[in-house]
Structures are given as structure tokens and as C-alpha cells.
């Protein structure tokens, strides 16, 4: 033990950088395997964009679990709802969306995304009050209730919009790629990366620089202690749940634009992907979730390029490998 003077700053917790190096190492390892630098850059950009979108969708889920031990199997519903709500705005303004000017299409896309977030967030409020509050503290019933909620939400979407796939074309100004030398990077991917990075930085700032964030992090680590100090953690949780739902809605809009189509079944497919990300990252950890999302996207993109057949099970293999290394995920933040 080293002696500490009273004026010295408190010792910082040791930073665990191995998980951060993991995606970087994976990306570097792929350069010789893929061979061509330009396709490597394109694939890496694609992975980062996809990873950011998955991160936006998964971030809420991991915090909700970490904070309140609530496993929301209906998280995917918020994604689908967000995407469907966006079509409400985008369909009437289809002409302006397809305008040549980037600013005009962004001026339509931004309110669409905001409306989606508002509706998903409001739905989050209802889900938390109606489905999760009554069975609080009972895992089994939580899983059943939220699965039931997922069924009802999906079926309601079908009832309102019909069972067909709704096209959601990308604005003309966001089509095409930036060409740097012989590297082509799709414009929309750059936008997705920017939004994802902004969301990540915003979450990190709130969690690490505000009192609210301090309470959330403390709650993730030890809920009873925060309650004992007199904070109403239930209200805090409701806020986190609504924010997470709203982010899932935003992710849904981005994913729908990426795929250029909307369908309620997207919630099923993405739920699986998000669960894998949350497990890999460590339940409750935003940093782990971020790295996990990028890893999953990298494995999907590189794997799809190198061994297309393997891409089907690559996520599971990744999850197994990570859990062998760290059984509780990359960052184990909860005490549970």
C-alpha cells in the first residue's frame, strides 16, 4: 500500500482496456485475411455503422436490466413501433424526402425521428406502468408479461398498417457513397455512425458528468443502497425505461432506412441480435454494450465477406467465445 497525502486525488479505479482493444485487434487481424485495403475499409465502415445502430437500440435494454433487474423481452416492439411511426411522417412528405438537397431531406427526417422517439417513449411509459410494475421483482412473470406485450404490439401494428412490408426509401441525397481514392463509403452509413457516436457520447456524458448519471450508475451497482439514501429509484427507473424505449424507436427508424423497408417482424430478428449484444457487453454496462454492438456487426460483415455460410451462426460463436473468456460479459458491472 502506498501512502496517500490528504491533498492527493483519490486513486482512480483501474481501467480495463482489454475489451476496447478487442474490436481494434479484430479489425487489424482482418486486413491480411481480406487482402484488399479498399474492401477492408468499406467493410469496417459498414460494421461501424451497423454497430452504432445496434448500440442505439440495445443501450436502453442494458440499462433497464442493470438498474432494475428487469428483463424486457418486448424491447423489440419499440423498434418496430418507431419505424412504423416514422412512415407516418415520411409518406406524406415523400416528395421533399426525395429532394436533392440534403438539408431538405434532413428537415423531414429529423421530425420523423423525433416523433418516433416520442411515441416509443410514451409507449415505454405505458408498458412500464401496465406490464412491468405489477410483476416487479419476479423474473419469470416479467419475461412472460413482456413477451405478451411483444405479441400484442406486433399484432396491433399488423392491424393498423396491414401485414405487408412497407417500403421506406432512403432520401436521394443520402444515397450513393463518398469516394476517397478507391474506397467507397455509403453516405447513409456515415450519418448512422455520426448519430450513433453522438448518442454514445451523450449517454456517457449524462452517466459520468451529471448527478442523475451518478445515481443511475450507483443504482446499477447497488439498488438498495441508493434507495436507503432516500432517492426514489422507481422514478429514476421509469425515466431510464422511457429513454431506452425512445432510443429503441430511433434505432428502429435508422434500421428501417438502412434496410429501406418496415415490417413488424423486424422486432423479432433484432431482439435476438440485441440480446446477444447485451450479453456480450455485460448486463448493465453501456461501454460493454457499445463494444459488443461493434463486435457483432464486425463479425457479421467480415464473416459475411469471408465465409458467407458461417455468417449464420457467427453471432452465437462470438457469444460463446466471449463468455468463455469472461462469463459475465465484457464488463461485469452489476453485483448480480
Amino acid at each position, binding site marked *: 500500500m502506498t501512502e496517500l497525502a490528504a491533498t492527493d486525488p483519490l486513486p482512480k479505479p483501474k481501467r480495463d482496456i482489454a475489451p476496447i482493444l478487442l474490436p481494434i485487434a479484430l479489425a487489424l487481424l482482418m486486413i491480411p485475411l481480406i487482402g484488399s485495403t479498399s474492401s477492408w475499409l468499406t467493410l469496417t465502415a459498414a460494421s461501424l455503422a451497423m454497430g452504432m445502430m445496434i448500440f442505439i437500440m440495445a443501450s436502453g435494454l442494458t440499462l433497464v436490466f442493470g438498474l432494475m433487474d428487469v428483463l424486457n423481452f418486448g424491447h423489440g416492439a419499440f423498434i418496430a413501433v418507431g419505424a412504423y411511426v416514422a412512415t407516418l411522417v415520411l409518406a406524406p412528405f415523400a416528395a421533399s424526402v426525395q429532394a436533392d438537397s440534403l438539408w431538405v431531406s434532413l428537415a423531414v427526417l429529423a421530425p420523423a425521428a423525433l416523433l418516433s422517439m416520442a411515441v416509443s417513449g410514451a409507449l415505454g411509459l405505458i408498458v412500464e406502468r401496465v406490464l412491468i410494475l405489477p410483476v416487479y421483482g419476479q423474473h419469470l412473470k416479467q419475461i412472460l408479461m413482456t*413477451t405478451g406485450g411483444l405479441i400484442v404490439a406486433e399484432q396491433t401494428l399488423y392491424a393498423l398498417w396491414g401485414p405487408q412490408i412497407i417500403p421506406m426509401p432512403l432520401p436521394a441525397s443520402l444515397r450513393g457513397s463518398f469516394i476517397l481514392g478507391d474506397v467507397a463509403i455509403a453516405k447513409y452509413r456515415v450519418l448512422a455512425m455520426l448519430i450513433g457516436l453522438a448518442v454514445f457520447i451523450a449517454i456517457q456524458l449524462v452517466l459520468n458528468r451529471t448527478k442523475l448519471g451518478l445515481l443511475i450508475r450507483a443504482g446499477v451497482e447497488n439498488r438498495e443502497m441508493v434507495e436507503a439514501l432516500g432517492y426514489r429509484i422507481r422514478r429514476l427507473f421509469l425515466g431510464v425505461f422511457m429513454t431506452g424505449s425512445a432510443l429503441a424507436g430511433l434505432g428502429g427508424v435508422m434500421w428501417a432506412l438502412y434496410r429501406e423497408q418496415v415490417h413488424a417482424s423486424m422486432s423479432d430478428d433484432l431482439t435476438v441480435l440485441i440480446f446477444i449484444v447485451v*450479453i456480450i457487453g455485460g448486463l448493465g454496462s453501456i461501454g460493454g454494450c457499445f463494444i459488443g454492438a461493434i463486435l457483432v456487426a464486425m463479425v457479421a460483415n467480415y464473416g459475411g465477406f469471408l465465409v458467407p455460410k458461417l455468417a449464420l451462426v457467427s453471432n452465437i460463436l462470438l457469444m460463446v467465445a466471449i463468455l468463455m473468456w469472461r462469463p459475465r460479459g465484457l464488463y461485469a458491472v452489476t453485483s448480480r
Partner: protein
Amino acid sequence: MMILSGDPPKSRVLTLVLVLIILALAATPFLFPGAKALNVAAKICVFAALVASYDLLLGYTGSVSFAHTMFYGIGSYAIAIALYGMGPNWAAVATGIVVGLPLAALLALAIGLFSLRVAAIFFAMITLAVASAFQVLASQLSWLTGGEDGRSFQLPELLRPGTVLISRNLFGFEINGRILTFYLVFTISALMILALLRVVNSPFGRVLQAIRENRFRAEALGFRTVFHLTYANCLAALVAASAGILNALWLRYAGPDTSLSFSIMLDILLMVVIGGMGTIYGAIIGATIFILAQNYLQSLMGVASKAASEAGLPLLPGLLHPDRWLLWLGLLFIASVYFFPTGVVGRLRNGGGDKSAGASH
């Protein structure tokens, strides 16, 4: 009551309902003529066994698995691929069983050892991920599984509808291979449900319930909980795969929509919760209610939807459309988790109670 393993329904109404269901199922070929009724009855039998095996996991150990359709699908595909590849003979049926059942058990063992060891909550998520990967795999390996189209196959001579065993003029009914297949499905399903009843009322089943109520305490008492949970997982997988075999034999087909899709998993969840978790009998009630609703409620909803659209009501035609019947069952599901956590059977037995409350921690 040796055959019920000392665990009778314990309620007069429940006994009556169960006896009625079983008699109706047994007599379906003679009471309700027509292919549809027989199909519905066979499906109820298969699903009663499948749901009972899921109840062993959900109701008795409190662990939520989303991979149950995977085992069901393994059984279906094993028999389908064997009969498709080797032709319609009994050797192919035997091959399907010999390959399918151990495969399901091994996979269950692997998943169990891998995910039941860590936090119980992981189990639900990992089974979901593995099941979805398996589903993609099955639809991609089209040289083996037939992809999205699945595999249709011929049954051995004896089980074909064209084989007349007892001709019409004896009892006024014709006993053909189809009816024989139905009784095969009925008998094996019934035997599996009785076997499951035996399992849950054995000392092993008591340990499972102890783990459900308090895993830490069960471990402190000296039970190796991982062993018990994995064993239960393997048993459930075996029964599910057997149910899959029966289903494929009945349909003469195995494909992603009939044996692997996520919606079947949700159906199983709905059936077990509506019927009553942790009772085994709930599986029979739940499967009967659900499949009857699936087959007959839909036509009722079609009528209602048409009436609503003719009356010019907004939104209602869409909500009442026959394809939206799952919406109403989903609402019923939420309501039953909330208001009747013990399901129909629990209600009939003692008007509620808290037997399955607070499970899984």
C-alpha cells in the same frame, strides 16, 4: 391412482373436463367425421405432450427456454429427412428416431451446461439466440432440409390413408391407416404425458420444485442444481423431439413454419400459461383451448370482422380480422399472467393460490 403417479386432478370440475377432452379425442374418428376434426384432434394430442414437456421446464424448474421449438423441429426434421431420403419404410422411421432423439438430448445437454451454470436469466436469452440461429440454419441448408419449402414424404405402407385395415361394413366405420396413425399419435402422446407426470412427482421432480422456489437453498441442502436443471432440460428436449416426430408423421411434412418458427414457441408459452404452469394437466387444457380457438375462433372472427366493416365501423374490422386472432390471445395471455397466474387448472383446483408465484430468482 398408480397411473397418475399419485397426482390426480384434485378437482371435480377439472376431472370432468379432462375426462371429456380425452374421451372426445379418443373418439374423434367416430364422433366427428371429416379430415379437419381429425387434424385438430391430432394437433391437440401432439401439442398437449409438447406443452407438458415445456411445463416441466417452465412450471417445475422456473427456467424460461425459448429453444423448445428447436427440439420439436429436430424431431420433425429427423423423421422427415430419414423418410425422404430412405423411402417409406420402417427402417427409415427407426433411423429418424435413433438420430433425432439423441441429437436433441445432446444439444439440450450442451445448452444446459453452458447457460444454466451462470445466472438463470442468461438461459432465456441464450436459448432465444441459439434457437434463432438454428432456424436460420435449417432454412439455409436446403440440400438437407428443403429450405423454406420443407420436406414432404410418404409414410410406410401400414400408416397410409389408402390402407384399409377393417372395412366399412363391420361397424359402419372404416379403419384405415390414417386412423391408425391417429391412434399412434394419441397413444404415444398420452404415454409421454403420463411419464412426465411420473417425473414431476418423483423425488427428482420435488428437487426441481425446490430449485424453482429457492435455488440457493436447494444448493445449500446439497443438491447439485446444475445437474438437476440440465437433466430436466434434456428430458424436456427428448419429449419435445418425440412430439416433433409424431407431428411430422401426422402431417407427412416437416418445414420451418410447422415445426421451427418463433410463433410456435409463443403458442407453447400461451398454452402453458393459460392452462396453468406447474401442473402438467394444464398442458392438456391449454392445448385444447388454444388449438380449438386457433381453428374455430378464427372463422368466428371473420364473421365479426365482416359485420363490423359492413356497419362501417373504423379500425374494428382490422382488429377483428381472422389473422389478428393472436392479438386477442396475447391480451388474454397478459391478463392470465396478471390475474390467474396459476391458469385454468390452478383456478379449478383451489381458486387461485400462490403455488407458482415468485418463481425463478
